[in-house]
C-alpha cells in the first residue's frame, strides 16, 4: 500500500512539472518580488501591515489558489484527457490511494512555490518578521492543501476545470466573498487569511475566523474533496 502511494506520488509529481507550469510559477513569484520591491521603496507607514496586506491580497488571493488550480486540476485531469488514467485505475490499488497521491503532489509543489515569492516579497517590502514568516507559511500551506484537494476533484469532474476554477476564483473568491461577512463564511480564502491575521498579528479584511476554525475547516474540506475524488474514481467510466 505504502509502495503504491509513493510510486503514484512520484509519478504525479514528475508529470506536474512541465515547462509551462514552471514558467507560470516563476512569473507569479517574480511579480510577488516586484510588488514587494515597489512597496518597500515607497516607504510604507507600517511595513509589517503592508507586507501582510500583499501576502493576503496577492499571495493568498491569487498566487496560492492559481498555482494550486493549475497543478491540482491537471493532476488527474491530464491523465484523464490523455487516457493514461486507465493504467492506474485498472489496478487493484485502492482508489483513495490514487486520490491522495494525486492531491499530495500538487500540494507539495504549491507550498514552496508560493511561500518563496511571498517571503521574498515581505523582505523587500521591509516588513519581514518571524511572526509574518510563520503566518505566511501556515496560511499558504493550508491554502495549498485545501485548494489542491478541491481542484484535483474539479480536474476529474470537468474537462475545462482550469476555466471553471478561474471563474470560481475571480467571481466568487475575489469578488462575492469580499462583499461581506456572510459570503466570506462560504469562501475558502477566508480561512488561510484568518491564519495569517492571527499568527502575524495583523488586521486583514474579513479574516475573523478563530485559529482552530481556520485550521480545521479547510482540512475538513480537503478531506472531503479527497474522499469525493476517490468515490468519483470508483464510479466513473474510464476510456
Amino acid at each position, binding site marked *: 500500500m505504502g509502495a*503504491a502511494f509513493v510510486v503514484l506520488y512520484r509519478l504525479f509529481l514528475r508529470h506536474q512539472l512541465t515547462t509551462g507550469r514552471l514558467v507560470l510559477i516563476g512569473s507569479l513569484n517574480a511579480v510577488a518580488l516586484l510588488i514587494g520591491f515597489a512597496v518597500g521603496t515607497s516607504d510604507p507607514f507600517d511595513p509589517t501591515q503592508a507586507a501582510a496586506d500583499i501576502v493576503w491580497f496577492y499571495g493568498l488571493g491569487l498566487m496560492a489558489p492559481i498555482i494550486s488550480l493549475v497543478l491540482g486540476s491537471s493532476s488527474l485531469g491530464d491523465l484523464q484527457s490523455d*487516457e493514461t488514467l486507465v493504467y*492506474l485505475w485498472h489496478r487493484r490499488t485502492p482508489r483513495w490511494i490514487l486520490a491522495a497521491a494525486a492531491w499530495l503532489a500538487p500540494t507539495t509543489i504549491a507550498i514552496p512555490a508560493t511561500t518563496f515569492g511571498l517571503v521574498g516579497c515581505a523582505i523587500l517590502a521591509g516588513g519581514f518578521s518571524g511572526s509574518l514568516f510563520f503566518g505566511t507559511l501556515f496560511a499558504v500551506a493550508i491554502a495549498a492543501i485545501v485548494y489542491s484537494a478541491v481542484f484535483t476533484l474539479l480536474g476529474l469532474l470537468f474537462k475545462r476545470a482550469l476555466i471553471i476554477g478561474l471563474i470560481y476564483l475571480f467571481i466568487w473568491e475575489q469578488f462575492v466573498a469580499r462583499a461581506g461577512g456572510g459570503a466570506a463564511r462560504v469562501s475558502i480564502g477566508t480561512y488561510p487569511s484568518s491564519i495569517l491575521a492571527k499568527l502575524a498579528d495583523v488586521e486583514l479584511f474579513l479574516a475573523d475566523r478563530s485559529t482552530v476554525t481556520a485550521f480545521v475547516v479547510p482540512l475538513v474540506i480537503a478531506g472531503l474533496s479527497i474522499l469525493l475524488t476517490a468515490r468519483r474514481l470508483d464510479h466513473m467510466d474510464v476510456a
Partner: protein
Amino acid sequence: MTEQPPPPGPARPEAPLPPTRPTQPVAPAHPVAPVQPVAPARPVQPVSATNNLPPPPAAWPPPDATVVAYDVSLSFGSLVAVSNVSVAVRPGVSALLGPNGAGKSTLLRMMSGQLSPSSGRVWVAGGDPRQDAEARNRIGLVPQQDGVFEQEKALSIVRLAAILSQLDNVEERARWALNLVELDPDIERPVGAFSKGMRQRVKIAQALVHDPMVLMMDEPLNGLDPRQRKQMISLFHDLGSQGKTVLVSSHVLEEVERLGSHVIVIARGRLAAQGDFRGIRGLMDNQPLRFRVSCDNARAVAASLIGAGSVVGCTVESATELQLTTADASRFRREIASVCKSHDVRLVEVAPLDEDLESVFRYLVGGG
C-alpha cells in the same frame, strides 16, 4: 430492463487470486476452470441483427467460460454502441472482430470494467470487474489508445504496473514482462521517443506483468511490423495454451485468422456471429461469392465455366481478366483448374473479391 438471473456456470464463487510465482512467470493459474488449452472449435452461430437475442440456452454459458457478458447494452445519448450482446469466452485465444465503429472496443471496455453497461452484466473470472478489485486484477488490459506515460522509461511503466498490482518482486517481474515482448528493459530513452510498435509492446508488457488469468487487448497488433506481429501472435498462442483467456480485438480479418479459432463478430453494436473462424469462412463459401480471374483467354474460360454450372454470373473485363459470381465456391475452385487445363489456358490468378471484412459483415449482418 428486466433483471435477468445470472447465467449458470461461469465461476461466480469467489476464487482466490492465484499467487504470483516469480520463478514461473506465466503459470497456468486457473482457479475457475480446469485447464483446457484452447477452446475447441464450435459451429458458428450467426445471429440475426434485427431481432433481439433469444434467451440463452440452459447450457449457456459454458462452465469453463472465464469472461461472460450477458445481454449487455450501452448507449451514449441516442447512439446505441452495443445492443443486447451475450458472449462467453473460454480459455485460449479468442478474437473480437468487427469493423471500425462496430462497438468492439466498447464491448471490450465493458468486459474489462472500464465502462458500466446500461443493462446486462459482466463476469470475469468469478467477479464483476467494475465492482471487484480482485476480479479486475485478474485481467491484463491493453487499451486501444496510443498514450502511455510519455516521460517515463519502459521499465518504470511496467514497474509501476507491478507495484500497483501489489507484486513482491517488482523489478524481476518488470524485466521478465519486457523480455517477454522482446523489449530491452534497460532502454534509457523515455517511451515518448519510442516507435508505435515499441509502445505497443510496453503496453502489452504492463498488462502481462502480474501474470493475469485473462488478457484483454484492444487492437494490440497495431503499429507492429510483420516480424513483431508474428512474435506477438505466437506469444498470445503460448499464453492461450497455458490456460489463459486471451481476448484480442481487431478489424483485420487476416490478423484474426492467424489469431485464434474462436471468433466473436460484432457489427453495428450487435453480436453478428460467434464460433470457429473456419465455420465463418465456411458460411461465406456457401454464399454467392465473387472472384476475379486473370488468365490468357478470359472469354474461353468464361464460356466453359458457365457451361459447367458452378458459375451463376460472369463479366469479361478484358481479354485476360473476368469477374464471376459463384454459388459454390469450392466446386468453382475445382472447376477452374480443369477448365483452364482443358483449354490450355494459362491461369495467372484467382482472387476472391468478397473476403474482405466488410463482405463478411455484409453477409453476417445483412443476410447476404
